[in-house]
């Protein structure tokens, strides 16, 4: 399920750069999408009254708490995701070594 960026090390210099650039562009795109989905979620959870065209104080406060909470949540999931990924990777490597040792 996991790595393959290893494949990158075998690429010629020029392609490595091209790949890095592609990755950077994907990261920009992804953080913009994250931003969009954060706005969508906090709007949905915090705003439900449309008698005026400006956010009231309660809604504004709610949006701020929601965004803060979401970012903390996202950061924590990120840490767990990293741990689980590297665990999976070492398991896979152990498995592969075992298979090769069995030759």
């Amino acid at each position: 399920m996991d790595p393959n960026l290893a494949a990158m090390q075998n690429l010629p210099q020029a392609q490595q750069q091209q790949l890095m650039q592609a990755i950077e562009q994907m990261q920009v795109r992804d953080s913009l999408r994250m931003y969009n989905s954060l706005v969508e979620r906090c709007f949905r959870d915090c705003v439900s009254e449309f008698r005026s065209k400006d956010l009231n104080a309660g809604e504004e406060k709610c949006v701020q708490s929601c965004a803060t909470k979401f970012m903390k949540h996202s950061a924590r999931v990120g840490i767990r995701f990293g741990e689980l990924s590297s665990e999976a990777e070492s398991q896979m490597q152990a498995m592969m070594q075992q298979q090769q040792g069995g030759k």
Partner: protein
Amino acid sequence: MAQPGQPDPAAAIEMAKQEMDYRVNLFNAMVSSCYEKCIDKRYKDGELSVGENSCIDRCSSKYWQVTGIVGQMLGAQGGMQ
């Protein structure tokens, strides 16, 4: 992120595409969020009522304000890098 005075056509095209992608996503999210909040789903006919129309206007305005608040928060903590 992009250095001014250093024109790289391919990068400029990529940036313009990213920006358009972002704006389309923002617009679509606004459309569907305000649809959920404002539109009566019984669909008796295809007309928007007076109430729905004014709800759409206020909803668009509030949605835009939320993008502003969240954008400032992310900018402040460098979360958008």
